[in-house]
């Protein structure tokens, strides 16, 4: 992997082995076809059981629930390698691991954990996470219109969720809804429950190798046994987002490596004005900026990983890394696209695909500006949302 400061020496031997194994698998199984999947607007569902067998799904969760039980850095390196191929692949794994398996692990009953986690880890079941609604994602508490009311030993759910990754291919959705007292609660909703539908959102120009859907819930009845008993209030879904954002902070650096490497190789082989493009100062300045951002970003996430394993991680630290690494990757992808000239506008090269994908990553899991405001509140104690 691209590693200017030899950060790999700070990883354990096992973490390095995970990175190598993931890269090898993905270069063989995903890289050659990613462009085709992206252009066709399809997610490669045949890879889901393979991701499961490799141990990519919810990899940081304990082995007793069928997960790989790796460290936070190893988990991050998997996200890095997935997103080095495409943000859509990483999004699948982020949702499955951080937004579906994690809430079941953190807030589920023992029976729920035993029933769902091993099958989600193996890729036999696919999950989705429904928090965002049509009225807006940045203020999920204020905009949440989805309601759950109790009916005997069942709950009845009504509402609409928007922009939900994996929605149309999911076997179960973690749906967040307010109860009659206005308290946010989480439900494991099997997607074959009557009244549940998940139409796919088409014509996306970003994250095309990922399924994004609307979730429509009309009088959907779920037994109380499928409510996440430990989840009460908005902090439960927000804690899941912290997990996913942690993975994104790693993942986007994989995309950054991909576009940087491509731009560097192009600049070295292309000749303009009688010499290699790479010999031009402006070109070198662009490449130097990309490498600097990658190097700083990798040190950030390495440190985050160690804080996370030590139980000292604060969500605002994750906000900073999600915000800065994502923006760095997006800027690098735009520069790589630029350096490739006209070639950069085609899918023959990876830059424009990453560039378009990263527009989504910039927006989801807390937009860039929302993370700025989270940091602003941390710095000043004043909420400016």
């Amino acid at each position, binding site marked *: 992997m691209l590693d200017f400061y030899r950060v790999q020496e700070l990883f354990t*031997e*096992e973490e390095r*082995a995970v990175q*190598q194994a993931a890269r090898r698998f993905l270069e063989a199984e995903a890289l050659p076809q990613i462009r085709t999947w992206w252009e066709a607007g399809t997610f490669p569902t045949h890879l889901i059981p393979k991701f499961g067998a490799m*141990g990519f799904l919810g990899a940081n969760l304990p082995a007793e629930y069928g997960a790989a*039980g*790796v460290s936070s850095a190893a988990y991050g390196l*998997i996200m890095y390698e997935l997103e080095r191929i495409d943000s859509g692949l990483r999004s699948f794994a982020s949702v499955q691991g951080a937004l579906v398996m994690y809430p079941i692990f953190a807030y589920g009953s023992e029976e729920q954990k035993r029933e769902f986690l091993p099958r989600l880890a193996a890729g036999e079941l696919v999950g989705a996470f429904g928090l965002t609604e049509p009225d807006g994602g940045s203020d999920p508490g204020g905009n949440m219109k989805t309601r759950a009311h109790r009916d005997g030993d069942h709950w009845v759910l009504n509402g609409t969720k928007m922009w939900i990754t994996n929605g149309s291919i999911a076997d179960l959705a973690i749906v967040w809804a307010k109860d009659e007292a206005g308290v946010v609660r989480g439900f494991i909703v099997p997607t074959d429950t009557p009244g549940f539908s998940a139409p796919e959102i088409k014509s996306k120009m970003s994250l095309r190798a990922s399924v994004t859907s609307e979730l429509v819930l009309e009088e959907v009845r779920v037994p109380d046994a499928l409510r996440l008993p430990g989840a009460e209030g908005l902090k439960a879904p927000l804690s899941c987002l912290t997990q996913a954002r942690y993975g994104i902070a790693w993942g986007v650096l994989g995309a950054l490596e991909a576009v940087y490497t491509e731009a560097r190789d192009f600049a070295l082989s292309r000749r303009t004005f009688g010499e290699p493009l790479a010999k031009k100062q402006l070109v070198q300045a662009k490449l130097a900026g990309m490498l600097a951002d990658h190097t700083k970003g990798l040190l950030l996430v390495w440190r985050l990983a160690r804080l996370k394993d030590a139980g000292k991680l604060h969500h605002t630290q994750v906000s900073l890394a999600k915000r800065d690494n994502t923006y760095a990757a997006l800027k690098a992808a735009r520069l790589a696209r630029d350096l490739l000239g006209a070639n950069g506008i085609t899918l023959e090269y990876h830059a424009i695909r990453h560039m378009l994908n990263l527009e989504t990553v910039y927006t989801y899991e807390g937009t860039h500006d929302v993370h700025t405001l989270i940091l602003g509140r941390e710095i000043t104690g004043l909420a400016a949302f």
Partner: protein
Amino acid sequence: MKFVAIIRQVPDGEAKLREEGGRIDLSGATMILDQMDEYAVEEILQLKEKHGGEAVIVAFGPERTKEAIRTALAMGADRAVFVKHEGDADPITEAKALAKVLAEEAPTVVFTGGQQADWDSYALGPAVAEALGWPSVAWTTAFELEDETQATAQHDLDEGAQRVRVRLPAVLTTQQGLNEPRYPTLPGIMKAKKKEIKEIPAEELGVTGTKVEILSQAIVKIERKQKILDGTKEPEKAAEELVRLLHEEAKVI
């Protein structure tokens, strides 16, 4: 039954190598399990799955070789014996040390890479067989165990193939096509941590130095000549010059 794969760690084919003071500096390079040895590991795993018994890794090299050993263990091998040696060692010296380990392990059959990526040598497998007085079959693309005393194998030639029957124990070397090596998985990597790697210093096996000393190493540099002939003024002369260059310098026509 016991199946052994001899493995080595080599630089990744795509690794960026640096030349320093006439030697290749591997400190920053990505090192991997030799891909030809990977076929050997896969083959012994399949043999174990089919016939039962033990799949054992035997490795030779410096401390960092352990990473390659862990990869093989993550693929599913049971344990490893690691002959540790810092510095250069030629294939014959390596083979003699490895033979002592194998004599003690007394395996049913041994596999190793048909070629060593770093030396570009084919010697290790046959040299191990020679040191033990065992038969050897090179470049195998198929292998079938008949019983504990004999097996059949396919050996590829440049323009054909041979099927052979070989007495066991024997040393076979691999060739692409023998099998499709599995990926090491994350659960496999986690399990590998707990598997035994028995370390033996090479000196204890009689290695005192190398019989072939490397004096210097260099990386081939490929540079384009970027020769452009101006054909705008005298196109006929330029064409003649082009033909001459292709004939005399490039020697392609």
